[in-house]
């Protein structure tokens, strides 16, 4: 049921949401999250960002987290679209959509998925700052955000 796509091209939020809702009258709440490439300022200014990913594993890892979200909350639909390649400030990076009868479930699942995409999905960002290309370092706040959701070990998937 879930839509999971990795692509170079941009995505169309409205089209994805329309497809998710087509012909349904049981959905009461849709949450979308759009992650966007920030330009930064001053010494943090970047001219572009490149997203590298692990083909095959990225889709599978996202699918595992979507399955976890679907077990945890009564979801009626999930969309995850993650871009890769070179992006410039203002470009979309990632889209998560969750649909549920009630808003609390849609919000929680969207936030859960984003926290996990940030720290568990095999993507790596490098930023162009002037002439330099710099790998983005792991964000402690992101790691802590993902840890919020941890439940008893689920075997290999819970490793790291």
């Amino acid at each position: 049921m879930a839509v999971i796509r990795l692509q170079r091209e941009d995505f169309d939020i409205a089209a994805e949401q329309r497809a998710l809702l087509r012909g349904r009258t049981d959905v009461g709440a849709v949450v979308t999250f759009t992650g966007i490439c920030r330009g930064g300022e001053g010494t943090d200014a970047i001219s572009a960002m490149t997203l590298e990913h692990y083909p095959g594993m990225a889709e599978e890892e996202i699918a595992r987290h979507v399955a976890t979200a679907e077990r945890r909350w009564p979801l009626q639909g999930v969309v995850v679209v993650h871009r890769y390649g070179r992006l410039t400030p203002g470009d979309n990076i990632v889209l998560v959509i969750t649909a549920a009868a009630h808003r609390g479930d849609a919000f929680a699942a969207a936030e859960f998925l984003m926290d996990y995409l940030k720290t568990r999905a095999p993507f790596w960002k490098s930023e162009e700052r002037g002439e330099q290309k710099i790998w983005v370092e792991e964000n402690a706040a992101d790691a802590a955000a993902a840890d919020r959701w941890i439940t008893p070990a689920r075997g290999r998937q819970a490793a790291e």
Partner: protein
Amino acid sequence: MKIVYFAWVRERVGKTDETVEPPASVRTVAELVAWLKDRGEEYAFAFENSAAIRAAIDRVHVKPDTALAGAREIAFFPPMTGG
């Protein structure tokens, strides 16, 4: 077994993937890292801080003490920064 590298691990090792035949004494992910580090400067550099290295076996995240038995594809990469 096939090894794949991503991000700065790939850049330091200088290749995207390779096929290696470690000895039978190399049984875990951590032992494979130790064995790779002895293969040359580029590997020693890539794996110099093992706490900064993440691994996957057959596309599933694993810990350093995970056994390699049956693994087809082992991946090494830095902490993930997607989303």
